């Protein structure tokens, strides 16, 4: 258990999430894969601030990765609320949630 193992775990999670965003066709599945990617970024930030810290730093700077993760969690909550609201209104007006079938902007 060292910094490399946490960063490699975070890279694997990020690539799984990116695969999900690229290959899924359900909008809710794409939102779920986005949540995976945000979680992997949180793990990387917290692990980096746990193991690598500037010499003679203040205690608040030792915990700097935690602040990154807190603000990322805030933005993720706002993002999932807005994304699911868009999915619901799309489903109510067009009755479809697969991105292969949503092509209204194509002209």
């Amino acid at each position, binding site marked *: 258990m060292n910094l490399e193992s946490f960063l490699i775990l975070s890279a694997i999670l990020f690539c799984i999430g990116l695969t999900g965003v690229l290959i*899924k066709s359900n909008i809710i599945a794409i939102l779920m894969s986005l949540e995976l990617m945000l979680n992997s970024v949180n793990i990387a930030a917290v692990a980096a601030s746990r193991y*690598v810290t500037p010499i003679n730093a203040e205690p608040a700077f030792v915990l700097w990765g935690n602040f990154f993760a807190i603000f990322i969690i805030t933005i993720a909550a706002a993002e999932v609320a807005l994304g699911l609201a868009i*999915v619901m209104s799309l489903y109510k007006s067009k009755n479809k*949630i697969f991105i292969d079938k949503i092509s209204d902007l194509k002209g």
Partner: protein
Amino acid sequence: MIPNIVFYITAFITIISAIMVITTKDIFRAALFLASTFMGVVGLFILLFAEFLAAVQLIIYVGAISVVILFAIMFTKDVEVGNPFSKYKIVGIVICLILLILLILSIANYEWNYNFEIDNPNILIDAYKNSIYHIGKTLVTTLVVPFIASSFVLLAAVLGAISLVKERES
């Protein structure tokens, strides 16, 4: 020794659940595996001495976001049609494998400066023993502007969600 075993078990559960999220046919079960992935991330945060962040992750992700996603899945009626792949399946998997190999090579070949070689470890001990005190104090002093800005972001998200799902009078 024991933290190593706990780390490997937690990492295994997290990665297997994350793979199941994007391979399961049933999207309802995919959302349940997503909650399991979030629980694995809670365990990783505890292993990294970030207790406050573990509690926040448990409350917001496992408690709120998973339930909201489950509600959205149940409101859209194509549950049994599920979770099909789009037509870019091969290209997406190849791109992500190349990116993963590049990331692992660059992580493994970099020389990291670990902080337990510094002279005075008292700062680290103080920071991790009183982490909630330091987090609360810094959020209202140094980081007060992004703190208030994130509250406005949440307010805008709530108002936008309400106005998006509102019934239109015609």
